[in-house]
């Protein structure tokens, strides 16, 4: 049967089911096909922290939202056009987000009396007319799948488990996605278990055929590829991009990479990814605890490796003392904090920007360091390289503030040519004995000897003198050191000088980073929206909506949070009103007010989810109206 094909410019699909239903995998595969097809896309996985929360309950619902379009998009979207609900809990948990008229594809097999009661449905919503405002497709997905697999040598349970592939096949047909990638994926994933592979492939094809041959769907949709800048593309999550960025950065610096890490959600995937890359000379060390992870990384840096540690908020709290030691001994260290909802354990799988003040100030004493935040999943790659560049050039810890949304979310990423990447090795060198001794003599050191805290006048970085280098034997430690010579010093004026030198070194990096760029197309804006980190997409989308109404608004986004770009103060003063949306209670706003005496307007939502563009655009409109 030939069906009508309708063109759409963008679609938001949400797959939702029990955490055991394979919704993340289904979403991932649909995303891969969509990426290969050439749409721009953005994803939002959302799952419980429990590996298997009680089946059929609201806390057990796992979902994956995907926004894809024929044009450049910035967010995973606010409201789904299509909800795939594999059980009543998935319907109940997601219905409120659905606009009227949206499609609901529901697996009727799971809408049993017992399952309905579990989530408080008195009557079956698929039958009582309560969903009449939506396009309801009630399909017995489980039983059709089981039937399609009759004759295959798989148990009933395995047959039922293949229902997610049926749903995927159906959606792939509905949106004209290519199928080859998924078939190849299933072949390699289940290569060692041919029956299971056959079952999944058969279920996928059955879903596809179901869409094509039944009358359930009268139209098929098409979303044309997006016009992205030319190049080779792949889909990438923030955690993968960060891992690849670290490997690339070490390679560009000519340093061995050493990761010391303790498993923690949502950072563990970086450890997993890097532990697969031993052929690149990457050493990964799964430590006994968070402190051991960062300690080993710092030890490796002392030895001339690029020491890296990865964690999330609770781990950051534990690492604070060692990061302070890295500030004191002035060695390179890259600390990746994949923020999650806090305080304490908080909501491990949900996103938040709550660690900014901890990253900036959460150590004893005056303890300045560098803080960077990536804006999108793909940007995690570039941020890792920038963090490495600064860490090795200035011998300082650098904290990267990613978050759960960037970590697990994905987007199409233009694969860089190696020759485009910066040559980090040109930015630093290990201390060599002769030059430094000569410099020490010139500086009047007596007896002539190596001065481990004699700073480069341009960068204020101290020498990175690596064990094994003859003539540069020296001791470093957490006790205050005499300026230059580096021996223990309790001298009051020396301490004051060292406190200021450490701060001046970090402040000076502002001259070595790009100025803040402002997106203000017509130059008429009186309101600036200033964000940092993962809110880039939401703010960008909201700003576009506002501009479509004819209003003017400027957007700037901070990647460097310590030090700030040199022109930040001037940019802030250029606008009548500055709106600072953050997924915390106003941490950046607090600093801007204190540092620049600008009365910024803080907008805060701390729901464990990214901002919705619609919500932010209303907020921006309000500020413009009152400006």
């Amino acid at each position, binding site marked *: 049967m030939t069906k009508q094909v309708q063109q759409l410019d963008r679609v938001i699909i949400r797959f939702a089911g029990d955490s055991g239903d394979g919704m993340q995998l289904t979403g991932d595969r649909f995303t891969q096909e969509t990426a290969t097809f050439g749409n721009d896309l953005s994803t939002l996985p959302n799952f419980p922290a429990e590996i298997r929360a009680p089946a059929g309950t609201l806390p057990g619902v796992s979902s994956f939202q995907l926004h894809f379009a024929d044009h450049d998009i910035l967010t995973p979207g606010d409201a789904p056009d299509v909800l795939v609900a594999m059980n009543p809990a998935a319907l109940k948990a997601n219905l409120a987000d659905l606009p009227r008229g949206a499609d609901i594809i529901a697996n009727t097999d799971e809408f049993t009396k017992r399952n309905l009661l579990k989530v408080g449905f008195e009557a079956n919503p698929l039958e009582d007319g309560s969903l009449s405002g939506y396009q309801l497709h009630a399909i017995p997905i489980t039983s059709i799948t089981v039937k399609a697999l009759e004759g295959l040598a798989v148990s009933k349970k395995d047959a039922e488990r293949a229902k997610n592939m049926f749903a995927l096949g159906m959606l792939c047909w509905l949106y004209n996605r290519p199928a080859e990638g998924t078939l190849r994926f299933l072949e390699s994933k289940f290569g060692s278990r041919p029956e299971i592979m056959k079952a999944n492939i058969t279920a996928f094809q059955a879903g596809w055929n179901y869409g094509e041959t039944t009358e359930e769907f009268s139209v098929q949709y098409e979303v044309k590829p997006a016009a992205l800048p030319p190049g080779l*593309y792949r*889909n990438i999550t923030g955690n993968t991009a960060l891992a690849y960025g670290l490997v690339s950065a070490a390679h560009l610096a000519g340093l061995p990479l050493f990761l010391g890490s303790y498993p923690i959600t949502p950072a563990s995937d970086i450890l997993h990814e890097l532990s697969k890359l031993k052929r690149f000379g990457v050493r990964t060390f799964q430590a006994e605890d968070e402190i051991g992870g960062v300690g080993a990384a710092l030890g490796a840096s002392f030895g001339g490796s690029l020491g890296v540690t990865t964690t999330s908020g609770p781990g950051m709290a534990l690492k604070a003392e060692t990061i302070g030691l890295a500030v004191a001994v002035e060695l390179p260290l890259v600390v990746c904090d994949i923020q999650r909802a806090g305080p304490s354990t908080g909501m491990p799988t949900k996103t938040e920007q709550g660690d900014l003040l901890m990253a900036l100030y959460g150590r004893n004493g005056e303890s300045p360091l560098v803080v960077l935040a990536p804006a999108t999943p793909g940007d995690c790659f570039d941020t890792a390289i920038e963090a490495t560049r600064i860490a090795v050039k200035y011998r300082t810890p650098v904290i990267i503030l990613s978050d759960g949304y960037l970590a697990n979310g994905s987007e199409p990423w233009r694969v860089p040519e190696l020759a485009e990447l910066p040559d980090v090795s040109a930015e630093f060198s290990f201390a060599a004995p002769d030059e430094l001794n000569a410099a020490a003599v010139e500086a009047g050191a007596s007896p002539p000897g190596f001065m481990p805290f004699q700073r480069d006048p341009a960068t204020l970085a101290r020498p990175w003198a690596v*064990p094994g280098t003859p003539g540069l034997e020296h001791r*470093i430690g957490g006790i205050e050191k005499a300026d230059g010579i580096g021996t223990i010093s309790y001298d009051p004026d020396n301490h004051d000088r060292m406190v200021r030198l450490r701060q001046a070194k970090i402040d000076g990096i502002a001259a070595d980073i790009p100025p803040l760029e402002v997106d203000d197309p017509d130059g008429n804006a009186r309101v600036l929206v200033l964000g940092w980190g993962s809110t880039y997409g939401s703010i960008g989308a909201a700003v576009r909506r506002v501009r479509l109404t004819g209003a003017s608004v400027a957007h700037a986004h901070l990647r460097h949070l310590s030090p700030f770009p040199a022109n930040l103060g001037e940019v802030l003063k250029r606008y009548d009103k500055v709106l600072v949306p953050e997924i915390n209670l106003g941490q950046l706003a607090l600093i801007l007010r204190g540092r620049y005496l600008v009365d910024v307007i803080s907008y805060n939502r701390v729901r464990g989810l990214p901002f919705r563009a619609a919500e932010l655009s209303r907020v921006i409109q309000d500020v413009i109206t009152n400006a």
Partner: protein
Amino acid sequence: MPDLASTVPAANGHGRRRAALTLVPHATEHLATRDFKSDQEVRWCPGCGDYAILAAFQSFLPDLDVPRENVVVISGIGCSSRLPYYVNSYGMHSIHGRAPAIATGLASSRQDLSVWVITGDGDALSIGGNHLIHALRRNVNIKIMLFNNRIYGLTKGQYSPTSEQGKITKSSPMGSLERPFNPLSLALGAEASFVARTIDSDRKHLTSVLAAAADHRGAAFIEIYQNCPIFNDDAFAPLTEPGSREQRVVRLEHGQPIRFGPDGSRGLRFGPLGALEAVDVAESGEDGLLVHDAHVTDPSYAFALSRLDSADFVHTPIGIFRQVSRPSYDDSMAAQLDDARTEQGPGDLAALLAGSDTWRVG
């Protein structure tokens, strides 16, 4: 400058390629004790046992036959942890309890270094207990010298995790409620591959234990009984005072019968439930008396030896309790990198970044 990027393949024309760097090199010149003395004034209290340990360490280091620049000393916090400042090599005086973790990162990324950890009973067994047991379990190639003075010195005299139960200190005016750790039992519980005990005042014995530890590939754990004359004076006097020590100190030597007491009149034998008991050789005869074997793979025997230590030092073995060979963590880690390259070829960065699902635009 050492060449560090041997592990980074200059795969695609970017970055610098450097030569290999693997084993600890030999010293090219003859080094003397003075070469390992830094210009820093030593600042322990007069009479502190740390002086003797430092002196023994400095005079032993030339025998290592390792260039000064390939020796690294890493410590935590406490009186003993000041030691790296006094040794003219590379060193780091880190933070409380974390030296084994920092040394793990250094030793497992630099097989060409001789890495020593200096720690104390509070540093290693209280705040840093976790790092210690895991470094021993992994068999990281570091030599850990634990100065056990059974007290907190730097913070001025609180009970430590090795202080005897009932000890009166500033923080336990009615006596400490806690049972002490036996550091050797703890290390053996973690199945450390090299476990020894020695005493600050016995320079010869101390030096011989350091030498054996240095020869051991993997983690070496050395407990050093160290006197703190200020806050816990004479804690080990029964083991150091002439007249008393002959009765109590049990010297362990691999392959030798374990004998102690006047004229070696006493020996050790396993009792019915696996605990060791001391017997008079004249009464019990030589049958069943122990000959020390530090190389037994199972740590139970060494553990039984470690239990002989008691608060009143009735019989206290010193020497090498256990020395077994098993792969060192840095060697295993390096071997995995080699295997990965053999099996998968050297890393190709461009191929990694592209992955398997790509599409081309324009």
